[in-house]
């Protein structure tokens, strides 16, 4: 009996393909291919899908989600998590509406909302980094507190916000591009530059990859995480303002339902929930995929209940494929 004899049948070409798939950039390419495929599929199935009007609808619908996902990506890369971000968005809209109703200048009201968002982010950050509590539990709790407060302040009712200059933030266009889309793209661009090119960005990856070693190597681990929580709170407030401007009203629970989409986009984009690994462009493409999927299925008259099912299935598929890729590499 011959023991333990195997051959190596893998053809060189197959091996080269595997090596390519193992590269970090490959995840992004796979996502882009998937995105192109669903765009192609929907444009075949629905003539209206590829129209300029519809594309800008997808853009504006996803912009405020993208804002929060953009800030959430480096936070998760650094080993953090902010489940309260969508609740902060709801509260920010409410703050703007209530302060404006009190006769305050609308832009001052917006600044106050941004300040509130940053403050809530700082509270999350302080509890997580100073008390060393688990980010999932802390931000789950603050999510509940913040969305509860938004309800308390409004009695659960939508607050109208019709101020043309303010509503422009939601519906205005710059060079034909909807302002929310432009803003979100610029925020992604800024986060990419910061992550890829600055020492802070390097510290984000180091902090998430191994906080203990990073601290011993002089990386200001807590300050990095703290900064990212504040940025996350700020992005929530920004998203809330944009959403209120789009809707012409501040609904206390307007953004809460999108939390799952935000987290799903970050993970779909290839960011590891365990930290240390992730890509900001991956998140952007994932946001586009999820937005396109929702929009295309709506055009095809698929009920929103089935859309939830589809979104979950896509997430599972993407995460499964990514794991496969990582394992092939090892």
């Amino acid at each position, binding site marked *: 009996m011959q023991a333990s004899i195997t051959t190596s049948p893998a053809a060189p070409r197959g091996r080269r393909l595997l090596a390519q798939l193992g590269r970090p950039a490959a995840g992004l390419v796979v996502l882009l291919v998937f995105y192109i495929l669903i765009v192609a599929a929907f444009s075949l199935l629905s003539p209206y899908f590829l129209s300029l009007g519809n594309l800008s609808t997808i853009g504006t619908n996803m912009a405020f989600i993208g804002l929060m996902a953009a800030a959430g990506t480096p936070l998760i890369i650094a080993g953090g998590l902010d489940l309260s971000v969508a609740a902060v968005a709801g509260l920010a809209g409410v703050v703007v509406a209530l302060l404006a109703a009190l006769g305050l200048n609308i832009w001052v009201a917006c600044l106050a909302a941004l300040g509130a968002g940053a403050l809530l982010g700082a509270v999350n950050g302080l509890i997580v980094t100073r008390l060393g509590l688990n980010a999932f539990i802390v931000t789950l709790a603050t999510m509940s507190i913040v969305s509860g407060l938004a309800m308390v302040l409004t009695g659960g009712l939508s607050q109208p916000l019709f101020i043309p200059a303010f509503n422009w933030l939601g519906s205005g266009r710059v060079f034909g591009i909807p302002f929310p889309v432009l803003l979100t793209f610029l925020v992604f661009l800024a986060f990419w530059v910061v992550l890829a090119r600055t020492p802070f960005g390097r510290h984000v990856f180091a902090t998430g990859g191994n906080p203990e070693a990073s*601290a011993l190597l002089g990386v200001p681990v807590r300050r990095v995480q703290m900064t990212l929580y504040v940025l996350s709170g700020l992005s929530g407030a920004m998203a809330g303002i944009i959403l209120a401007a789009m809707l012409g009203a501040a609904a206390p629970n307007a953004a809460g339902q999108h939390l799952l989409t935000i987290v799903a986009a970050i993970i779909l984009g290839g960011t590891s929930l365990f930290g240390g690994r992730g890509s900001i462009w991956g998140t952007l493409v994932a946001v586009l995929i999820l937005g396109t999927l929702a929009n295309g299925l709506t055009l095809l008259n698929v009920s929103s209940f089935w859309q939830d099912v589809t979104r979950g299935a896509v997430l599972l598929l993407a995460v499964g494929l990514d794991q496969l890729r990582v394992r092939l590499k090892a």
Partner: protein
Amino acid sequence: MSSPDRGAVASARLLIEAVSKAFGGVPVLREVDLEAGPGEIVALLGANGAGKSTLMKILSGIYAADAGRILVDGKAVSIRSPQDAIAAGIRLLPQEISVHPDLTVAENIAIAALPSRRRLGVPFLSRREIAAQARALLDRLGLSEIAADRRMGSLGLPQQRIVEIARALVGKARILIMDEPTAALAEAEAEALFRVLDQLKAEGVTILYISHYLDEVFRLSDRVVVLRDGRIAGSFRTAETSPDEVLTAMLGAMAGELFPRKAAPGRPGDVVLAVDALSLPGWIADASFVLRRGEILGAFGLLGAGAEKVGRALYGAEPGARFAARLAGRPFKPASPREAIAAGFGFVAAERKREGLVAGLTVRENTTLPFLGRFVRSGFVERRHESEVTSNWIRTLSVRTSGPEQEIRFLSGGNQQKICLARWLVGDPKVLVLEEPTRGVDLGARREIYAEIRRLADAGLAVLLVSGDAEETAGLCDRTLVFREGRIAAEFGGETGPRDLLRMAAGHDDAPAAAGRRSAPQPPSLQTGAPL
């Protein structure tokens, strides 16, 4: 090596015949033959990349061999998965301790096949059987002092290691493969482990023992087999060979002195770091010393004696540390590693994986992390500059890597350690603390690292070497502080041998140092240390 004769086949517990393995066309093992009898401890030595771990992984079913046969008790076995290996009676104990700290000792031992009893068709755990099985195994290993119902995490490292061995013995383990089992243990603690191995040997269990520590190998093994470049480079009866002979076989052309020469005698360098009354509650009490330019100062002690915390206390990594110190004439009291680095302090941590590496980052990113600021121009990191500097260190320290962009986790231990050293040389620290700089590092890389440390000291760096390895401390240091029960018990010069250090660290033969601390180390038996 020629094929063993018939008689040997009959008596061999494990027989490996012409096993070969290649990765991507690169041969890693070339027709390796190995034989081990019942109750024999065979030490497997070899530099990094010699093929040791590949051979172990083939035996334990993680890789499949490309060619060759493996026979257990004269019968050919096909090992294609870890389950096959276990069925053949082969168990692997990996280098890293892996236990469930929140389960009891007994549950840890029984975890693979929990004894259960069906009631109404539902399996219930049988706590009594779990406990009885654990008790029997622990008693068999002569470990009546370990209570089976204790939480695993409350045991010391050496005892956890021993419980792991007990776990491997569940079922009928006939061949035990141990990869660097003492890597995380202090010398004295390893002795408890060795007694267990002697016991297993007496019971006829065959042990393949991988270690970088020659003194261990000579203390334990019956035979020494040396791998080099995927081939058997030598096979010796331990009683009939010498460390020199083994080293020559391992290193081939590289053979030579392991340690560089000591600092030239003459005028001692200026004091760079003066530490007054360093204390860390529970670890160090009132330790004062100076560190000079150009010298390698050792801090040596048994585990728990305080030496292991000296470097990190000064580095600002121990919040409870109190001391007054001057670094290059200026008061030095860092509140964090960040401040210590800014003041000119460098630190290579003992636990490389946990405290030294950011696994997902590249070699380049790991190299530049502490001094990233030096690579920043107008707010942006200059990658090209980083790459140049990293490539330069890769060449200088002959780091085996595909380049600065390789993820550091794919490098071998020795090469990772070289990067951990190089990252401090990117800046120019005045003081460098090295904790266990060669733990889990093969001999070839060890020699290179020692030479580099000496070169740095010659260039004016003040080095504090914190090591639990007496051989290393005696071989490398110009001066050594021996710690006992948190205090500096003695200071030795560069000519002191490892035995004197150990003797001082252990106190008198009947008075174990640091008793009642994290663990109670036994006085080390002063074995045949390899006089390298």
